[in-house]
Structures are given as C-alpha cells and as structure tokens.
C-alpha cells in the first residue's frame, strides 16, 4: 500500500497542540468528509500524496491517532504508577487523555461518515446479488452483484497474461487503446458493485468517480480483472456461483472482444463501481433515468 505518513520528530506533541488549535475549525460545521480528513491530516502533520485514496488517508490518520494515544500510556493500568505522579504530571496526563479522546472522537466521526454500505459488507470473491439502495430518499433499489476483488499479482496486464494467455492480454491492451491502463496494479482488496439495471451515470468526470470511490483504480479496469479471473475459473472447469455465471455470461464478450468494454450494446446496462472499505455510493450515482426492462 502506498503509505503516506511522513513521520516527523515530536509528532505527537506537535500534533496534539495543532489539533487543539484546530478544534475551532473542526467544530465549524464542516460537513464534507474530504474537508474533515484534510483538517485532520493537517492537525496531525500527515503529508498526503495526490493519489491517496480515502481508505489510505483514513488508515494513515488511524495510525497517527494511535500514536497520539500512546503518549498517555505509561500511567495506564497502574494505579501504583499513577500514585507516583505529581499533581502537575497528573494534570498533564489528564490533558493528554483529553486530547487523545478528542482525536478518537474525530476519527470515529470520520469513519461514521463513511458508513459501510450494507450490501457491500456482503461482498465476497464469488459475488452476491444485492439490492443496492441509493443514498437518496425515494429512489428504488438497484440490483447489483457485489464482488470482493483481491489485489492483483503484479500489474493487471501481467495477471491477465497469466490467466488468459499473452494473445488475449495483448488484445485487451490494444482494444482498450489507452482508455484503461492495464499496467496498473491493484494493491489492496476492493469491492466492486456491478449494477444490473442502471444506465444513467451521474458524474461530471471520471476523476469525480475516482474521488467518490476513494481510488484511482478505474471501474473498467477492476471489472476487466474480475472478469478475467472468472473466465479462468470457468475454463478450468471449476464450479461457478450464480453471480459468477451471470457475470461470465455478460462479460465473456467484453473480455474477448473488448469492443468498448461496458459501452457495447449488449452490456450497456452493466456498470461497475468500486469501493475501498465499503465506502457508500455517492447519492444519485446509480439512479435510473427511466424504468428499465428487467435484466438477467
């Protein structure tokens, strides 16, 4: 994982005082998770690289939060030790604990903002059919398969070459012609939700998608990798789950022809969206603009 923390000497002391100084801003009705994370990172002295995902940023914040808690530890569990502290030291310890608690409260708040979407919590490598509820009220749930996709072995190209052979892997590269970089690696497990009924993607740019999903690993690429793995499994004669069978049926053509991947007519209603840590879907992303016929 691209770990993003630059440890700095005296981090805990500095971060705790910085956090105290930033408490007013933190309380200033800041709603967006991005802003909260940004504030928190600033307070904790965390440097974040541009490509950082929400998941990585939360992880980094969590690690540093643990370090901040650490500072208060020596007196923990020991009433005898505590009895040796002066009133001034006890007062400092109390302040440390208050700061650590504030830190944890904010961390909990950040995580709460990123509530695990229930359907995604059911994601498995074999896939499961769920009703994914849009976060907007009054919108009908969308049928989706949710799959857990494990990290790639090397780059996606390398793994697909291993799974399907060089010829098919090279064909994929050619057919994607730059729209999908198969030389990326998937470094952590992700959840992929494949919407079966949705055909209206509410987004401004692909970058918005990445930001919302907390990753720069594209949905097309995730789906390609997932499909290649399922095809390999099918070709090996292994038993497929219902979700895998359906995915394979829908995706075999995509993998083989790659004629526009998700854009080709037969698969036009298939959309993929990927998630780190079960981050919930942005409101409206999977909404349908019009009633769609039942799809298998």
């Amino acid at each position, binding site marked *: 994982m691209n770990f993003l923390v630059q440890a700095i000497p005296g981090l805990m002391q500095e971060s705790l005082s910085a956090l105290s100084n930033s408490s007013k801003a933190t309380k200033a009705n800041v709603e967006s998770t991005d802003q909260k994370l940004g504030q928190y990172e600033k307070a904790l002295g965390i440097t974040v690289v541009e490509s950082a995902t929400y*998941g990585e940023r*939360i992880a980094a914040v*969590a*690690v540093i939060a643990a370090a901040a808690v650490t500072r208060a*530890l020596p007196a923990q569990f020991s009433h005898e030790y505590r009895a040796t502290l002066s009133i001034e030291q*006890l007062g400092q*310890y*109390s302040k440390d604990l208050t700061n650590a608690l504030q830190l*944890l409260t904010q961390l909990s708040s950040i*995580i709460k903002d990123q509530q695990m979407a229930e359907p995604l919590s059911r994601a498995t490598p074999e896939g499961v059919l769920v009703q994914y509820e849009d976060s907007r009220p009054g919108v009908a749930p969308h049928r989706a398969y949710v799959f857990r996709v494990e990290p790639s072995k090397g780059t996606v190209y390398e793994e697909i070459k291993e799974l399907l052979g060089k010829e098919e892997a090279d064909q994929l590269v050619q057919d994607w012609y730059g729209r999908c970089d198969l030389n990326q690696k998937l470094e952590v497990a992700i959840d992929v939700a494949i919407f079966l009924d949705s055909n209206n993607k509410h987004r401004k740019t692909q970058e918005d998608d990445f930001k919302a999903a907390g990753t720069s690993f594209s949905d097309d690429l995730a789906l390609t990798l997932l499909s290649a793995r399922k095809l390999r499994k099918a070709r090996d004669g292994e038993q497929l789950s219902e979700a895998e069978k359906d995915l394979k049926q829908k995706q075999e053509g995509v993998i083989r022809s790659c004629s526009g991947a998700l854009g080709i007519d037969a698969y036009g209603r298939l959309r993929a969206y990927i998630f780190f840590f079960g981050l919930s879907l942005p409101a409206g992303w999977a909404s349908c603009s019009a009633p769609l016929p039942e799809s298998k």
Partner: protein
Amino acid sequence: MSDEQTGADSKERAILISEVDRLESEIRRRLLVLVEHPGVSEEFKSNSIVKEWVK
C-alpha cells in the same frame, strides 16, 4: 506544607484521578468500537499500544 495545603492537594489529586479514570474508560470504549470497524486499517488494529488499551 501545611495540613490545609496537603488536604487541598489530596482533593485535587482525587479529582484528577477521577477524571483520568473517566477519560481512560471512554478512550478504551472508543478504541474497542474502532478496532471492530471494518473500515479501520489493519495497521491500527495491530498497533501494540492499541492492543494494550483494548485487551
């Protein structure tokens, strides 16, 4: 130190220790929630200090 001062110190100490107890308890409760959360990193969960707090 006079008896009066000693008494005041003891009272202040008792208040501080009570506050420390409360804070430690609350921190432990929050850490327990965090380590159970699927969105929290393994690095955090496996942090020895965190483990010490929640054991």
